[in-house]
């Protein structure tokens, strides 16, 4: 069975693409992988907060002045973020960037930082596809764009009917074809070790962890885990892996699970047909729904 494994630095992390297919040559699989990487590059070009030339930066600069036509992919991500914002009653909010800029987690933009009264409810998704803001906002799609990029790459590979593939963007994964028996997830206290999660029932998984700023390890925080309403950062040393049908859902849901009240995120996970596995600071694994 021809198998190839490629890796490129994208989305601020290392993106690995593995493709196995006995019907095709290695050369063809490499071409497919390159096409999949191009999709990921496209998400980066459109939605990078760090790139002043990205479409997102343009939207952040002008969205409150007039509606903007944006790429359907960008609109899809914003729409999904708004949907989850509503479903989580504001715990997931892509407009928290001003606080993150103030704390130095995100770079300052050339435009004036909006004040913090805006929320995702000030985003207007026009029927003609354009987007505008009811007041100056600063959107940061870092909470779900990586998962979306993984989905786009996976969709492309599925269109080509590959037998088996795996896309891993810095820990956000999507399986195409057969799923593995176990999934290694890094221990949040000792990233050189992993715990093996079993019973992988969904094709996408994302893991978020709110570590102490520990200089011994250089692991970047997976997301700048900040509660949009209390404006308090996550501090406990736990990691959560969310399994869902799509990686964009899994990516966003990890933040909601880490920040929200248990009864709230539990009912949301059930509604989204997703599940979660926690690794505590002591290395214990806790499942939701509880393992049968």
């Amino acid at each position, binding site marked *: 069975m021809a198998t190839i494994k490629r890796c*490129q630095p994208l989305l601020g992390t*290392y993106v690995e693409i593995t493709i196995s297919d006995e019907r095709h040559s290695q050369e063809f699989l490499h071409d497919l992988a390159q096409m999949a990487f191009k999709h990921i590059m496209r998400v980066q070009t459109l939605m990078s907060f760090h790139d002043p030339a990205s479409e997102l930066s343009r939207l952040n600069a002008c969205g409150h002045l007039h509606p903007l036509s944006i790429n359907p992919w960008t609109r899809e991500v914003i729409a999904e973020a708004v949907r989850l914002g509503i479903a989580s009653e504001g715990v997931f909010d892509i407009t928290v960037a001003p606080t993150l800029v103030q704390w130095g987690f995100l770079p300052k933009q050339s435009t004036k930082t909006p004040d913090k009264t805006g929320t995702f409810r000030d985003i207007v998704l026009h029927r003609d596809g354009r987007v505008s803001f009811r007041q100056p906002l600063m959107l940061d799609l870092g909470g779900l764009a990586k998962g979306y990029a993984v989905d786009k790459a996976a969709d492309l590979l599925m269109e080509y009917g590959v037998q088996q593939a795996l896309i891993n963007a810095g820990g956000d994964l999507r399986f195409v074809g057969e799923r593995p028996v176990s999934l290694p997830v890094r221990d949040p206290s000792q990233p050189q070790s992993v715990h093996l999660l079993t019973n992988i029932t969904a094709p996408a998984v994302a893991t978020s962890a709110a570590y102490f700023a520990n200089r011994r390890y250089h692991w970047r925080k997976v997301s700048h885990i900040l509660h949009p309403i209390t404006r308090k950062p996550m501090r406990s040393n736990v990691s959560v892996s969310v399994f869902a049908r799509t990686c964009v859902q899994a990516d966003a849901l990890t933040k909601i699970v880490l920040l929200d009240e248990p009864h709230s995120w539990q009912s949301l996970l059930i509604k989204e047909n997703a599940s979660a596995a926690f690794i505590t600071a002591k290395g214990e694994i806790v499942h939701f729904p509880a393992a049968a």
Partner: protein
Amino acid sequence: MLRQTLLKRAALLATSFFVPCVVRCEDYMSIEQAQRTLCDGAALRKIPITLTSEQKKAIERASKERVRNLEPNVWRSSDGTWFIVDEVIGKHEFITYALAIASDGSVKGVEVLTYRETYGHEIKLPKWRAQFSGKTTAAPVQIDQDIKNISGATLSCVHVTDGVRRLLHTHALVLKNL
């Protein structure tokens, strides 16, 4: 004289405890495969080059990155594309990657060739191992060659990004003029 020898021996002994342990090891592409992929199969010629100290300083000033290798591995194709193989070291990772630069100085592509993740001697010390005794839940498994496709903390690719920036300045200041 004796003190110098003793100090030297002590230093050697100390460094021997810091041999990094390779916990993860991925080989993605060979140099030849990367050349075919990034340079569209064009024929490449290896160009031997040694940077002068002025060139080194100019690149460091422009890129704000240390130049550790005065003899970069570079190839040039007939259409002016440059293909470079470089290494970067992070706190726990050692990466070899390939960068193709088009004749206009733009990036044609970047491919990671090999990835090594290492941790220091601390994982061998008894105190570290003692954390795992007496646990009722399964102790974490140390990553080794058999552990693949890991989910978890996002490892930043900043070292490769910084390396690419340094190489782009190397191209602009040195390679372009060859």
